[in-house]
């Protein structure tokens, strides 16, 4: 028993020949991919929500198509499909411009694909959050003569954040977990690093358990962070029972 204990600690040690460092690097890149994809999703989602609410018929139709399609198709298929379509499309574009083809960096591809997927979900979350703002508040801002940008920054954004935050927290959780799917198209993040570690040492169980715990740690820490942010954006609001 003592020897196996020692063995497991050796396997997980952060310095080679231990695989702990590889796992931690994988975890860092998982968080990095998720954070970048989340940020892109936020941008797309804000644009999408404002576009859907803008009243432009064609824009709304296009955005409806985007959100419905993305939310209806399995994530794995989306990631694989967009990965191929994205790199293929980019290279065709480059060929049309008579530029040499590029090899798309795995990190960029992962972030772009996950961000595009997140954007569809964020559009709906943010749209709901904006609709939940009492109309009077926006009318008041207009009456004060605020321009659209100032109105968004001073009234819309602070008022929508408390409504949107639970949904955004859920989306963050789902993007950290969806980023594991990127392993399928071959970018090395936590899931793929774990599989490599397992394959070369044959201690699959230890490594997958370790990486599951790493993901769990990411989730639990995010929970705490989101609770803090929620306390911040809800400051000044009466507490519900």
């Amino acid at each position, binding site marked *: 028993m003592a020897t196996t204990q020692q063995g497991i600690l050796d396997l997980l040690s952060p310095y080679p020949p231990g695989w702990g460092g590889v796992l931690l690097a994988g975890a860092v890149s998982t968080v990095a991919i998720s954070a970048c994809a989340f940020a892109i999703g936020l941008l797309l989602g804000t644009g999408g929500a404002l576009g859907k609410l803008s009243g432009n018929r064609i824009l709304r139709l296009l955005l409806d198509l985007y959100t419905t399609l993305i939310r209806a*198709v399995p*994530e794995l298929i989306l990631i694989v499909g967009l990965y191929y379509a994205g790199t293929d499309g980019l290279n065709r574009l480059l060929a049309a411009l008579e530029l040499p083809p590029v090899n798309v960096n795995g990190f960029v591809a992962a972030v772009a694909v996950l961000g595009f997927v997140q954007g569809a979900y964020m559009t709906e979350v943010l749209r709901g959050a904006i609709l939940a703002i009492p109309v009077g508040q926006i009318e008041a801002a207009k009456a004060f003569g605020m321009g659209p940008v100032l109105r968004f920054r001073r009234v819309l954004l602070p008022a929508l954040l408390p409504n949107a935050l639970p949904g955004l927290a859920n989306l963050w959780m789902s993007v950290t977990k969806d980023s594991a799917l990127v392993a399928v198209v071959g970018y090395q993040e936590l899931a793929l690093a774990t599989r490599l570690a397992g394959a070369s040492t044959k201690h699959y169980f230890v490594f*997958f*358990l370790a990486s599951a715990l790493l993901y769990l740690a990411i989730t639990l820490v995010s929970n705490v962070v989101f609770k803090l942010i929620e306390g911040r954006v809800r400051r000044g609001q009466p507490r519900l029972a």
Partner: protein
Amino acid sequence: MNFTWISSYWPLLLTGAWQTVCLLVISVVFGFAIAIGLAFAQVSGGRLTRLLARSYCTFFRGTPLLIQLWLLYYGVGSLLPMVPGVRQSLFWPILREGFFFAAVSFTLNYAAYEAEVLRGALLAVPKGELEAGRAFGLSPWMLVRRIWLPRAIRIALPTIAGEIVMQLKATPLAFTVTVMDLYAVANKVRQDTLLVYEPLLVVTLFYLALTAVIARVFRSLEAQVPVRR
């Protein structure tokens, strides 16, 4: 767009669709049964059962399904043959298959998400109805079977439909452990014919159709009980 490959691949597509549906049905049915236990453990259990059910849900909801699947398939799968007698047992041909591990991990995962939905629904059942049941002299078991659970399931129906669709969208992961599901067939077609988008498109249409069927079934289930609005 080139769909001529369908004529030679349709038997494979059908078996793939069958595998996908099997995975979905198995994980939803067994997962739901486990979820009922987990939800009651959290709502009315003692301190220890509550803690255990809570940590089960946290673990399975906090880690990616892909990792759970690989933990079972590669991890437990590589430990299983070391258990004496397993190789000789009747179940070995099943225990060797990727399908078994996919079904188990999907079931455990679905149970965790569904337990959370049911927990909320159990708490949402009006207290007066439970008290009325008690006043009629129903035993705790009868109360659960006749009032508490059916009422909770009815409250949770729309959410359950959503969860089943989410589960359907998770099934393509099974292809990573050699299950020949619909997505794996699309993958194989890609490797054979070098067509990337057409197989994915066909498979996607199937998923959309299945989603529509699930939505339809649940709408008619919800319509079983007239609700005053």
